[in-house]
């Protein structure tokens, strides 16, 4: 009964999960292509972890269906009696998972932890030895095989958890905020390593995080979730450049939101005139048909140019004054006051402007994204 379309590894349809009466996941549908790394991104309580756990069979959905590699592992009892309820046990789903708490068994050695999934599958002793070594090598933990799990640091536990998850060569690996307990530097390193590992072993991965930077960096595609629903699905570039609504624009990356309305009849050639509430006229890209209820323009902080006063003259240009300059190292953040209130602007550290100086603010129409009223 399942439709296994073009290399789909995971298909989630109309997933619904409730805790008591409270809906945690409310009609979520998406597919993951074989070998893809898909990230579920959202604030805490948005249903991303619940969705992931439902794929692993650790959470009881109350509606919808989940198909893994063409096999239906969960389906709710359909309206017609012809489609009975299906719910394959976690251990029969053949997925693997890295837990947020790492879940390293404290009563076993590192080797035993990693060998667990292989032993369950009753592989010959020599094969287990070989596979554990391979997995530990991949995460650079061979030296620790004999250690008790209780003697490991957080970062080491994380590596063991990853080794254990990939040791039995699963087709699907689920990651539940695997890096959230690491410090910033280690997190950045592990991000690269996980991506490398996923490419090398080409497993399909679903990755849950609340860190938008991590999501954009690591994913093939990102799903932004909020309140148990999907807000937007797209490539990291898509999500960043063309947020579909106020929530996505605000949650992913630093965006300035400017209130106003589209001037009627001004749409032409994929752009339109947007009158801000403060009386500025901006040229913005329409990126398809207008709905008529667009009331906000989102403008990424990095896409705004600043120049010494008087040098403007482009399409969207205005005068502003630098209120504050915050040096971040990798970039400089300016708080600029202009006619439409305040703008957050990020510039490379090579462009230094003094606090209090007058500047010309400009940005391209294609970076002004119209958002519908929500």
């Amino acid at each position: 009964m399942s439709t296994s379309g073009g290399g789909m590894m995971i298909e989630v349809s109309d997933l619904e999960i409730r805790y008591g009466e409270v809906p945690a996941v409310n009609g979520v549908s998406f597919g993951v292509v074989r070998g893809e790394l898909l990230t579920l991104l959202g604030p805490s309580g948005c249903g991303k972890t619940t969705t992931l756990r439902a794929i692993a069979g650790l959470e009881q959905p109350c509606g919808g269906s989940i198909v893994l590699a063409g096999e239906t592992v969960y389906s709710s009892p359909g309206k017609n009696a012809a489609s009975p309820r299906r719910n394959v046990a976690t251990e029969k789903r053949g997925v693997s998972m890295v837990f947020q708490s790492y879940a390293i068994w404290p009563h076993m050695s590192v080797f035993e932890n990693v060998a667990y999934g292989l032993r369950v599958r009753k592989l010959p002793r020599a094969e287990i030895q070989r596979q554990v070594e391979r997995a530990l090598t991949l995460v650079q933990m061979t030296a620790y095989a004999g250690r008790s799990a209780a003697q490991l640091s957080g970062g080491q536990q994380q590596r063991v958890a990853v080794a254990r998850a990939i040791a039995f060569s699963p087709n699907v690996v689920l990651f539940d905020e695997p890096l959230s307990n690491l410090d910033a530097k280690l997190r950045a390193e592990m991000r690269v390593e996980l991506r490398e590992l996923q490419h090398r072993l080409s497993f399909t991965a679903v990755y849950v995080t609340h860190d938008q930077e991590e999501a954009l960096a690591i994913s093939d595609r990102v799903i932004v979730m909020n309140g148990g629903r999907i807000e937007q699905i797209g490539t990291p570039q898509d999500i960043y450049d063309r947020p579909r609504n106020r929530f996505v624009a605000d949650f992913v990356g630093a965006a300035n939101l400017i209130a106003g309305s589209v001037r009627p009849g001004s749409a032409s050639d994929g752009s339109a005139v947007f009158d801000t509430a403060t009386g500025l006229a901006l040229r913005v890209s329409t990126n398809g048909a207008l709905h008529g209820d667009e009331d906000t323009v989102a403008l990424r902080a990095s896409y705004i140019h600043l120049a010494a006063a008087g040098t403007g003259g482009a399409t969207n240009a205005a005068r502003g004054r630098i209120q504050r300059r915050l040096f971040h190292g990798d970039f400089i953040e300016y708080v600029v006051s202009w006619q439409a209130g305040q703008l957050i602007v990020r510039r490379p550290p090579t462009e230094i402007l003094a606090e209090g100086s007058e500047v010309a603010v400009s940005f391209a129409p294609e970076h002004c994204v119209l958002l519908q009223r929500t």
Partner: protein
Amino acid sequence: MKYLLTPFVLLICGSLVLYPVVFLVTESFNVGDPGQFPPVLLGLDNYTNLYDDARILGNTALVACLATIMAVLFGFTLAWILTRTAIPGRAVLERLLELPYYMTPLVGALAWGVLAGPKTGLINQLWRLTGGGDLVDIYTPYGIAWVMALFEGTVAFVMISAAMKSMDPALEESSRVLGAGKLHTALRITLPMVAPGIVSATIFVFAEMLGSFAAAFVLGVPGRFYVVTTAIWQATLSYPPEYGRAAAMGLSLFLVMLVMLGLSRLILRRGNYATITGKAFRPRALEVGRLRWLLLAICWAYVGLSVVLPLGALLLTSFQRFATVILAQSIFTLANYQTALQMGALGSALENSLVLGLVVATVAVPLVSILVWIVYRANAPGGRLLESLVMFPQAVPRLVFGLGLLWAWLYIPIPIYGTLWLLGIAYLTVFLPLGMRTMAGVVLQVDRGLEECARVCGASWLHQMRTVTLPLLRPGMVAAWLLIFIAGVRELGVSVFLMGPNAKVIAPSIVNSWLTSSSELSAAMALLQTVTVFIAVALLFAVVRSVARGIAVRAGEPL
């Protein structure tokens, strides 16, 4: 599976726990023939007659108040010294201070009876050498309260320590940084933060003291000084037995205690601000300079009064024909131990207690494991109901529950009344809360992810249980086993009603021997019981260092 298991377990536990209570309630309204069930004459006389016992209520209030004041005073002082000051040997002292609890108030009362009885008491004997009369008399309300405070007050120490330990030291440090002095910080920050814990502990201890039996029994009954618990016991022995009056007193006591325990919990929950985060802090110890030798002396004095002196007195007495501190007059003998260990009625009492402890612990641990799994892990429907049901015996004073069990099994057509079987079933019922608490503490510590990960790795439920869950729970199961064994060996409240002539157990036998024969023999028996318990306690501390810390004391396992 969990849908089938839960109703079944609910039924078993329900009948074990509720059946005796039904009898108790019914009997309390019985104003006709006390031996009749179901009763033919119902009325409130048993309750209205309680007013006639004003003297008993007064006695109870007096003893409970005195004992609570002393216990909280001791508990607060010790807790403050041990958690907040830098005195040498803190770890050892913390362990030693739990010992009085394991010694039981019964043994404590006997020992203090030997130490401070009029005329024959060892302290009074010594004092008379200096030419005085009797220095102390333990057979008074003050003596009873003293013993109760020493041997049942441990819970105050544990609760207040917990309140002090759970306070983030940053709260005090920020006060200091903002310019407040030590005293100002103590009054404005520390005290308000720990106050709910102390008030809650006080009420809790008071409720426990109201239901306390052993000390008032050993030290009050000889002088016809009765508190509610001993009056209940007395009522069942009179002829004709006043079961209705006993039940009415028992239920009233239960209700009063229930309200107080509820209040204690409410205060702790309401007033806990940020103190109880579940995280244990080790607050920065105050540097107390020279004063620390005084503080250290206070701690060791407490250990001396509650452990060393009583055990020393029992040891000395148990090896003598007649108890005396004047060594020149003493006649040393092993006869007391020979009598105690002989395979007569006394010897079998010790053996029976050991067998009961072993069997009940062995049966209870798997049962409790299943219960805990149903309640805390399986999310089965009815789990919460099951929890409150199983925890219910803890709220009932042990003696009152014993009273209910007495009738419940007297009227059942299975002929187990007066046998070890009945004692076993009764023990199992009243020890379930202790087992539940111990196991729940361990189960809740085990991150659910550890189990889930095994499933994701491809292990079946059974394989996961065998390779992950059970190995992780093993320390907790060992702890629960040992705690239940200890509780079994020292059980008094239930046994005092259910013991038969052919099914004696140790604690009530010690009391009988104390009331009817010699203190030397009782001392020997008390020491044998204490040694058994201490061996188990030593095992407990060795096997499960982190799990067992004060679990029994915190679980409020009464005797």
